[in-house]
């Protein structure tokens, strides 16, 4: 009787001799590589990224810190907003002065906006203007041009007393509204 080990080596020898017949080993090889690559790519785009992003959830002190920070942020927001609302409410109950001291006319309002625009070099707050910056610049240029023409005209009138007198008289006669000299 043959020993067990001898039988094992004989079977192994037989198996080695009878290799399977493969039509195209290269195709199989490339197929395997493709599948491996695909599997690796899918893992990186979803679960690995999410795991990386939310890895902190499993670290106790980081999790506690972030949750505390969120609660503090919400509390600060509520506190700030409630104080502001309270103060605005107090202001809204204040009496409005229909004032003689108030000397702003609609023309002054435009002037005020122009001053703010000129000096700040910024666009108006969205609630106060609906025209573009280009249109605004055109308006400013027009106003400046008008002011130059106005100064020239004023100079011309002031240099000629007769002309000044005549214009004043004419304006007074026509309509006693607003005169700027």
């Amino acid at each position, binding site marked *: 009787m043959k020993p067990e080990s001898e039988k094992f080596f004989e079977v192994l020898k037989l198996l080695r001799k009878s290799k399977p017949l493969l039509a195209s080993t290269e195709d199989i090889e490339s197929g395997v590589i493709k599948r491996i690559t695909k599997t690796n790519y899918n893992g990186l785009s979803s679960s690995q990224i999410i795991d990386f992003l939310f890895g902190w959830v499993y670290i106790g002190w980081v*999790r506690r810190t972030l949750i505390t920070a969120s609660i503090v*942020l919400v509390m600060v927001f509520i506190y*700030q907003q409630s104080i502001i609302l309270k103060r605005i409410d107090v*202001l809204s109950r204040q009496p409005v*002065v*229909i004032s003689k*001291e*108030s000397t702003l006319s609609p023309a002054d309002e435009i002037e005020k906006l122009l001053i703010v625009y000129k000096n700040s070099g910024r666009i108006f707050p969205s609630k106060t203007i609906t025209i573009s910056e280009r249109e605004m610049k055109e308006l400013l240029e027009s106003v400046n041009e008008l002011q130059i023409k106005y100064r020239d005209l004023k100079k011309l009138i002031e240099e000629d007393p007769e002309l000044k007198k005549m214009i004043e008289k004419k304006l007074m006669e026509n309509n006693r509204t607003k005169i700027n000299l």
Partner: protein
Amino acid sequence: MKRRSLKLIVSLILMIIVSCNEPETVVTDYVHSDGSVTRKIEMKSIEGDIKKRFNISDIQVPFDSTWSVRDSIEINKKGDTTWIKRAVKQFKNINEINLAYKTDSGANKGMLRQAGFRKRFKWFNTEFRFSERIDKQLSFGYPVKDFLNSEELLYFYSPESLKHDKETGPDSLKFRALADSVKHKTDLWSTKNIVSEWIGAFSNLTAGKAGKDMTRESLKKHEDEFIKIVEANDKKFDSLWSEGIILKKLIGEENALKYKTEADSALGSVTKYFLVSFKDYSVRIVMPGKLIGTNGFIDSSHVLLWPVKSDFFMTEPYEMWAESKITNKWAWIVSGLFLAFVLSGVIRRVIKKD
């Protein structure tokens, strides 16, 4: 030494100087978020030559040749003419305004005035505070709030137009009574201030020389008696004072003879404080962003308004302040994203645990 009647001093303090010849002045500060301020002065006069009337010495706030000035005349439908002078200047920051106050040569150059600006980043909002402060004139005066209740105080600090509207409005009787009450109480306040200031100045001058009965504390104890003596003799105050009769009643015959010079000097310094020249005006402030707090009045064009009168800063500093905020939209977005991130992490953990 030149002496002025106490009655005259009191009258000058109590008088509301609304002269037709005085131009009405409104100073408007447009405060920008970077701390720069555009200041506009508007002076209105109903009579006179505008060029002669609007001298630097007439203007209530610092003014010089660097301002851009525009003169105009307005004639209304009734034919009334108003001369208007408008001047505008851009200040880079409040330091420029404060420097201008220090070197002021205008009508109110004697007053110590200061502007303040504060910008605070508070994550969700950025808050701004702008203030204009005038230092008090008297060293030993009483705060007006010790004499007036809250309603009277509000009336006392109100713009003239608001007072006029209330006194001629539906509750005119109530407001006229309030006006009378305020006048009566402020009369007393003024007299007490004069006496208190005189005691302070007199005790400073006699410090180290006079006895214990002449210290500020001991004189203060008799303040009410002093006021009664002053009020009882106010018609002949000048002659009674120069004869030393009032002083004898106040501090006794011996002390009156001994410290007559100091008493006169003290009265002189009190007079100097009370007769300080000041031209009233109005201050308006336009803040950046949304207004959240102020101690001023809101006028019809939604601009803050304060009348500025010498009474307001006689015994206490007068501060006109306004606070506003600008919402930091980017901070709201960042905070929202952060909260969503933390919340989704916590939810994910709960789901995975289950």
